[in-house]
């Protein structure tokens, strides 16, 4: 499941599940012995922040880079000065949680040159076919191209996180596989993983390649 690339960027449409996946992926890397930091660069929506899970991250020994204002009551699109450690300190793996849509990806502007220069990254598009504005491959590809344009960087793979929240069943996930396949073909990118909540993981294991369990839930206000 783990890539050999040092940087993993999770980008995608609003509410596609980026924060949750970034947190769980970082914990997964840590458990396989990597020195890892999560960088919360979501300057679009201050309501769901990685910082809310700070205690869990600390316990697991995962580093955290996020805005000083995150989790506070200040609605300021500020970036932390530690931002530069993402590309300057090459001793650690970094999982980047980027804000939704092209607006969220604008934050990549100042990081992209260094990311491309180092050339050890994977940039994953998180997709959910049950989100109203990305129900099919063409609409999903549209969001994908907008993000690439805003960030000045190309995707390398897909994460299928298709779910209906609490009402997600194994059938919900299975019914999304043709969609993920269609996006994959249209984008020319592999589906790197399919993410499901832990309670569905056992049922779906073996039926879905690259299945990845989400155990940690980002706090919802």
């Amino acid at each position, binding site marked *: 499941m783990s890539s050999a690339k040092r940087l993993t960027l999770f980008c995608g449409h*609003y*509410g596609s599940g980026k924060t949750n996946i970034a947190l769980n992926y970082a914990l997964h890397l840590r458990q396989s012995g990597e020195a890892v930091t999560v960088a919360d660069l979501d300057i679009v*929506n*201050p*309501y*769901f922040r990685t910082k809310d899970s700070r205690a869990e991250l600390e316990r697991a020994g995962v580093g955290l880079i996020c805005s000083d204002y995150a989790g506070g*009551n*200040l*609605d300021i699109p500020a970036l932390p000065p530690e931002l530069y450690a993402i590309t300057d300190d090459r001793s650690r793996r970094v999982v980047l949680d980027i804000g939704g849509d092209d607006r969220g990806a604008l934050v990549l502007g100042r990081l992209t040159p260094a990311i491309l220069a180092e050339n050890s990254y994977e940039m994953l598009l998180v997709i*959910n076919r*049950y*989100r*109203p*504005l990305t*129900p099919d491959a063409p609409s999903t590809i549209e969001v994908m191209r907008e993000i690439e344009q805003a960030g000045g960087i190309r995707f390398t793979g897909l994460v299928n996180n298709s*779910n*209906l*929240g*609490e*009402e997600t069943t194994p059938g919900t996930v299975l019914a999304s596989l043709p969609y993920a396949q269609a996006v994959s073909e249209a984008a020319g990118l592999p589906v790197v993983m399919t993410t499901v909540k832990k309670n569905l993981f056992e049922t779906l294991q073996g039926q879905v390649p690259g299945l990845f369990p989400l155990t940690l839930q980002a706090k*919802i*206000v």
Partner: protein
Amino acid sequence: MSEKVLMKGNEAIAEAAILAGCRHYFGYPITPQTEIAAYMAKRMPKIGGTFLQAESEIAAINMVYGVSAAGKRVMTSSSSPGISLKGEGISYLAGADLPALVVNVQRGGPGLGGIQPSQSDYFQATRGGGHGDYHMIVLAPASVQEMAEFTVRGFELADQYRMTAMILADGTMGQMMEPVSLDLHVAPMPEKPWATTGTRMQRPHNIVNSLYLVPEVLERSNFERYERYRTVEENETMYESYRMEDAEICIAAFGIAARVSKNAINAARAEGIRVGMIRPQTLWPFPSAPFRAAADRVRCMISVELSMGQMIEDVRLAAECRVPVYLCNRVGGMIPEPEQILAAIREAAKTGGNKQ
């Protein structure tokens, strides 16, 4: 459209408005309602509608006035401080008897306050908010599905009674994601013979105005408006009754507070405490009748609110001093934990409402 989609509350409002035939949205970004504007910005150009980010909330509400006068379904949305700015325009809409949908995804106040959820605009919403004698129809959703359904209902009621309907949500309702069915029934829009759509030289001019300089005429317009309000009070009250059949304690809560209260009620029931809830879905008109009826059966009531105690006044008025009404609250962007409400229920079960 029978398949469910996963939506944020804010997105559900925006999509439901489009399904209800709204093609004009004017707004100004403010957390925690910005997704409504963002969604409209994406969708409206694709369906021949108008999305316009106004230069201020005041500009936006006056654009609403203009479109409504032209007979179209129109909406604006904001969060608490922005709604205060819209106050003047909302009063003008009322004075001109223009239908509109205004969404308030509340945040903590007063002043700029914070960006976390709150219900402390209850007074502002249910008492009108702006100057003059008027009411808005105030709908209080408690799920993403209700965010969608009440948006449609809001447009229908606004057109039917020529009033502003307000969706009074909070930051949690706006941001939370739940599966939604968008298979919504929308009643056909009523005729609007008063709209300024052009006379075609076949009828007298329609004039949309809130200026009445002759006091006798202004008084008459107020009397007529309040006649209409009485009809709304008689016909349009909505509430949910939850486990009230044998309840000795009645919780009053709406929106996010009602969701948390349900957990506390179920925990208290497991301890053998007979507690239920009346959840107002319309805050104006307020469902006084079920509270009045409950006041004859229960020992006491607890109003659970994300405010310093605003709805509690309507609960007390409805209960007519028959039972004590206690407040269980958090403010400033904090949400009560089920444990806090459970503790208030236990306390009430022990000592509450020993009738004189």
